[in-house]
């Protein structure tokens, strides 16, 4: 639901013609960024959780699957987030799971953005048959329910790690990014400064990187942020259905274990509330950050 807004937006901008960023505009962006509450709050929440992933593991001596104490203990000074129905430390699982989520977000979202950019640039800049071919490919991957695809791939993998999961997510999540980047490249391609570069004999690859890409940096950044959040959600869903990493813990797996091992029936809410809450907070903040960035980059949306 967030994605299509971006596609629509790219169509809109297509019509309006993208304003070309000049150097002094950067200062203006920073000025508005520092005054944008949405951006600041979103960034603060994401950084807060990022901080937990770095310093959180320092406060635990346990392994995530070690049986360390009495079962089903509520949160206390001893066990900060309580223990599971097996007597595992929920806090340990939580901080490690959080790390897994960030890794999936960065790698999966990064790969998806990268593929989207490459395909979008190629299709938009080359046009013609290349565009047509890539368009069909994009549309096919777009209609395939990627979750079902991941399901069947993961089901046949005996050993699954965070990395494999991220890579698979990255390779299936790129289509809408490709479509949006293509639309923008297409509109920039026929602008005077690009024509000028082409006439001066600049190579296509260089034109893309020095003339076209800088004009949509803000857009690419926002694409990455959305892909980041999307990858975290997909990974959590996949983990929850039992196809998560086999060698470590993740937030989705925590919820999976909690449901499978009676956390609901025994009222062990401290096992399933934190992981879902963290995902909601991180992904939600990313989305809100995205709105903030949009307002910073697009003068029309700034609060009057």
């Amino acid at each position: 639901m967030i994605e299509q807004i971006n596609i629509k937006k790219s169509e809109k901008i297509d019509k309006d013609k993208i304003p070309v960023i000049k150097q002094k505009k950067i200062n203006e962006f920073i000025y508005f960024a520092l005054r944008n509450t949405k951006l600041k709050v979103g960034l603060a929440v994401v950084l807060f959780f990022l901080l937990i992933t770095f310093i959180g593991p320092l406060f635990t001596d346990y392994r995530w699957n070690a049986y360390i104490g009495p079962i089903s203990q509520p949160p206390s000074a001893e066990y900060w987030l309580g223990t599971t129905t097996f007597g595992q430390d929920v806090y340990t699982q939580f901080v490690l799971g959080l790390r897994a989520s960030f890794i999936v977000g960065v790698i999966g979202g990064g790969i998806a953005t990268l593929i989207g950019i490459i395909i979008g640039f190629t299709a938009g800049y080359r046009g013609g048959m290349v565009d047509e071919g890539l368009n069909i490919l994009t549309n096919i991957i777009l209609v395939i329910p990627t979750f079902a695809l991941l399901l069947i791939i993961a089901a046949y993998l005996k050993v699954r790690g965070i990395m494999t999961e991220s890579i698979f997510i990255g390779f299936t999540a790129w289509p809408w990014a490709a479509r949006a980047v293509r639309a923008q490249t297409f509109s920039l391609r026929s602008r005077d400064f690009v024509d000028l570069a082409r006439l001066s004999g600049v190579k296509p690859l260089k034109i893309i990187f020095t003339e076209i890409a800088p004009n949509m940096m803000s857009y690419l950044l926002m694409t990455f942020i959305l892909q980041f959040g999307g990858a975290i959600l997909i990974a959590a869903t996949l983990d929850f259905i039992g196809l998560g990493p086999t060698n470590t813990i993740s937030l989705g797996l925590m919820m999976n274990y909690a449901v499978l091992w009676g956390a609901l029936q025994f009222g062990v809410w401290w096992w399933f509330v934190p992981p879902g809450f963290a995902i909601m907070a991180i992904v939600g903040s990313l989305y809100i950050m995205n709105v903030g960035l949009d307002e910073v980059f697009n003068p029309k949306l700034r609060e009057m």
Partner: protein
Amino acid sequence: MRRYFGRKIAVYISTFFLAVTINWAIPRFMPGNPVMNILSRVAVRAEAAEAMYGYYTRAFGLDVPIWRQYINFWIALFHGDLGTSVLMFPQKVSTIIMRAVPYSIAILVPAILLSFYAGNKFGAFAARTKWLDNTVLPLGYLLTATPYMWLGILLAWSLGIVAGIFPIASAYGFNLAPSFSWIFIASLLKHWFLPFASLFIVMFGGWAIGMRNMIIYELEADYSHYLEALGAPRKLVRRYAFRNAILPQITGLALQLGVIVAGALVTEVVFSYPGLGYWILQAIQNQDYFLIQGCFLFIIIGVLIANFIIDIVYVVIDPRTRVGMVGGSA
């Protein structure tokens, strides 16, 4: 019109073709032998293992050349033969899926339609209303960011276990047999409500946010300013904006189908609701590969059909596409 649908159908057919090919290829080209994978889970005596190996090799059709396997796979598919379930042994995969699909549809379709309607209405209402925008906007973003299963778990725990209002497992009471009686239907509805509600709430947030953002773009458009300058009432301007903004929302619905279906699958897992998601979890836990593959194929077909329906709806409600297409073909 023909060109438009021709293109769409070409994409759907290629997608289906690709999906079936993936479905065929993954067990065969993944590292490790699928038959050995299955057998390594069930420890049996040597001679029994040999018999089972023979059975599964034939079941996968691994004993003929690879191109022949591919053709056989398609032939079996068109006969509706998706293999035999390991988990529910003598039963066919297609039987299990057919039994599960009505439950999945029963929570998916109402949740999608109602949330789409309510979310869009609400989003259009909230846009550019200062206090609503500032309170509802972050809430809506948090809702879209909520993992479906988490909301399901929270509802099951709070309303199901703590408050004890709703049952949290199965599709109807354990002591009831399916029949056309009030007691049974009431039980069915009671079991249906929570899975439906958790899907509805998450999607509602998404549509509301999407519509709110879309309508702000429309209100900035020249035609809106022009209407305002003419002194048109706010309500009228909104109505025009809404009709323009709903179109990308419908495209968005098509794009989101995969995510929504995934959400429904995990919601079913939370509530042990006997739809496809429940069976997928069972299949994964029991290494029932035929069942997983059958579900995969079925989800793809369902999503493709839904996409096609959305294409038709789009043409019906957007007169421009209709006029444009007729003009193009004339």
